[in-house]
């Protein structure tokens, strides 16, 4: 399935845009997504850390992605 991944902060700079499309197999989890993203965008691995949000919530590594999910890359936050 093709999923859309939103990017914020430095992730937007790394992707070069506000969102990207990426093809992953049905039933795959956040860990798979991160591995795939890091293959395409190796600079993600240079970050202090980054999280993945699924439908506006922080997701676990084992969270399975589904068609229609809103997925976002959350680099280290620095609000306040």
């Amino acid at each position: 399935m093709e999923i859309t991944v939103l990017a914020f902060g430095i992730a937007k700079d790394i992707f070069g845009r506000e969102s990207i499309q990426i093809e992953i197999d049905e039933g795959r989890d956040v860990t798979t997504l991160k591995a795939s993203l890091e293959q395409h965008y190796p600079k993600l691995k240079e970050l202090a850390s980054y999280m993945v949000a699924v439908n506006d919530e922080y997701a676990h590594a084992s969270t399975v992605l589904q068609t229609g999910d809103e997925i976002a890359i959350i680099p280290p936050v620095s609000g306040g």
Partner: protein
Amino acid sequence: MIDILLSTEPLDVSYCISLVQSPECGGIDVFIGTVRSQTKGKQVVRLEFEAYERMAVKEMRKIADQAMSNWPVHKIAVHHRTGVLQIGEVPVVIAVSAAHRDAAFDACRYIIDTLKQTVPIWKKEVFEDGEVWVAAHP
């Protein structure tokens, strides 16, 4: 009562205070973040704040809910600004009212500490000779 705001407009500290003021309360603690002119000895030109808006509002509310259950506080306002901010401007205001001051202090501090750890908002420091997303790299 919890009031959450994410806005590109300048924040209104007096309004935040008025939101939490109540005849049942003996004290209000307010935290006001302000943009510093220097960071690690380097002159800052401006800051740029970006948010994953829907999730940021949700996370800010979660934190305020947690504060409400952890301490006997009455009302909470958490206002955060996004966009371009100049030196001295205010990116965040947190106001907490309570019958007794200890709860207001503890809850206010919990909210700003947690906000800085979990709310998806990002700050870019712009210098004369470049810019950097704060905390992005080790």
